[in-house]
């Protein structure tokens, strides 16, 4: 154990087994921990976590557990202290788990929600000029609706046939039917697609269809690709771009885009 236990001397007799000083319940809370994100007593870490001053999602849970439960060579576990510590760690794990699943745990929005809000602000700020331009257009429309134009009565203008070049017709239809490129065989033999590519593919599908069946998109994938596609879908959920729905256990997963 790298941390020192300032409460060591206060250890009670109740759990004192075999003459080695044991840690009591309060000792578990004041125990120093040293992990990437934080260095200090365990109870301070808890307070910071609850106030969201330390990002729970960033918290290396495994490191924390290791730090907290690896006993110093000269210490034995006092049963109450140990169970309280386990309870605390379990609570933190539960909290983190729920955060990762996007559940609201407290009133404070999590980092993802804040990022989404910031993105929304950005979008609204970018769009605001067009909304104002629309108001300007509406004003303009009201003003322009007033004057009246003279319409030459039919028959006064001699109809003159317009001449057009028939080559424009063939050019027009030609434009529509650009010969499709020869099918590419580049993907043959490539076993897996990189995650970014799957992300792009999934996004494109969502932009087109709003709702995509997972079974359908992985229909021609091997297991590895299927797993990667699921990861890509989860990544989109994490970024707030999609939602997953599975109506029946082990049934098809429907991926719905959350962006219009």
């Amino acid at each position, binding site marked *: 154990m790298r941390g020192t236990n300032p409460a060591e001397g206060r250890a009670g007799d109740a759990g004192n087994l075999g003459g080695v000083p044991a840690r009591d319940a309060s000792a578990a809370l004041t125990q120093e921990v040293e992990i990437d994100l934080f260095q200090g007593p365990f109870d301070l870490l808890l307070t910071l976590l609850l106030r969201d001053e330390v990002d729970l999602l960033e918290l290396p849970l495994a490191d924390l557990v290791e730090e907290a439960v690896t006993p110093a060579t000269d210490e034995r576990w006092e049963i109450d202290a140990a169970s309280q510590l386990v309870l605390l760690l379990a609570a933190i794990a539960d909290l983190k788990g729920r955060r990762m699943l996007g559940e609201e745990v407290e009133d404070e929005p999590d980092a993802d929600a804040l990022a989404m809000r910031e993105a929304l602000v950005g979008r609204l700020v970018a769009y605001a000029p067009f909304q104002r331009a629309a108001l300007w257009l509406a004003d303009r429309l009201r003003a322009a609706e007033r004057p*009246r134009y003279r319409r030459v*009565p039919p028959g006064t*203008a001699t109809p003159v*046939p317009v001449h057009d070049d*028939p080559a424009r*017709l063939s050019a*027009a*239809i030609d434009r*529509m*039917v650009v010969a499709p490129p020869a099918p590419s065989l580049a993907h043959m033999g490539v076993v897996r697609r990189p995650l970014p590519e799957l992300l792009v593919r999934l996004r494109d599908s969502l932009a087109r269809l709003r709702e995509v069946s997972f079974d359908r998109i992985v229909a021609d994938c091997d297991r590895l690709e299927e797993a990667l596609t699921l990861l890509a879908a989860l990544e989109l959920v994490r970024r707030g771009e999609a939602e997953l729905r599975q109506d029946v256990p082990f049934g098809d997963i429907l991926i719905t885009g959350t962006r219009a």
Partner: protein
Amino acid sequence: MNDLARTIEALLFIAPEPLEVATIQDITGEGPDGIAGALEEVRGRHGPDTGLELAEVAGGWALRTRGDLAAACDALRARPREDRLSPAALETLAVVAYLEPVTRREIGRLRGVDVDSTVSSLLDRGLIEEADRPHAGPTTYRTTTAFLERFGLARRGDLPTLERFELTGPEAGALRARLEHADLIAEAETGDA
């Protein structure tokens, strides 16, 4: 000019035919004397040194261009009316010309977009028309005589050959199949159906 004269001038300007004093009375609520005075004012504003004149024609009053400017007016009228075909209209017209008779749906599938407004505008301009329906299927469209005139074509189907397909007019069925195939591929590729 007073407001009555201004109003009468505006009415004369937009009237499709000579304007009767009774009509002016109805609209302005003014008596014949007031109207006569206002008409004099309008006449005064459009004197021989201007391009217009007020004339009493067929029991009514009309603003018209002055006689000495007839040549320029005729030159404007003799000009082909500006009737630019938008790219969308041209593509739609091309589809109808090569594949007629063709339904809206078929045109839409080929163009990959909704074509209702384009088809309507081509119908309005008289470049396409509804073809006879043999049985109660969906409406099909074909090009009109006005279309043939406009493009200087001798008869229906007398269209430029499509180099890309090495096809001539009568083989439109094969072309149709290939077009639809190309369309589906394009759809799958761009994902912008």
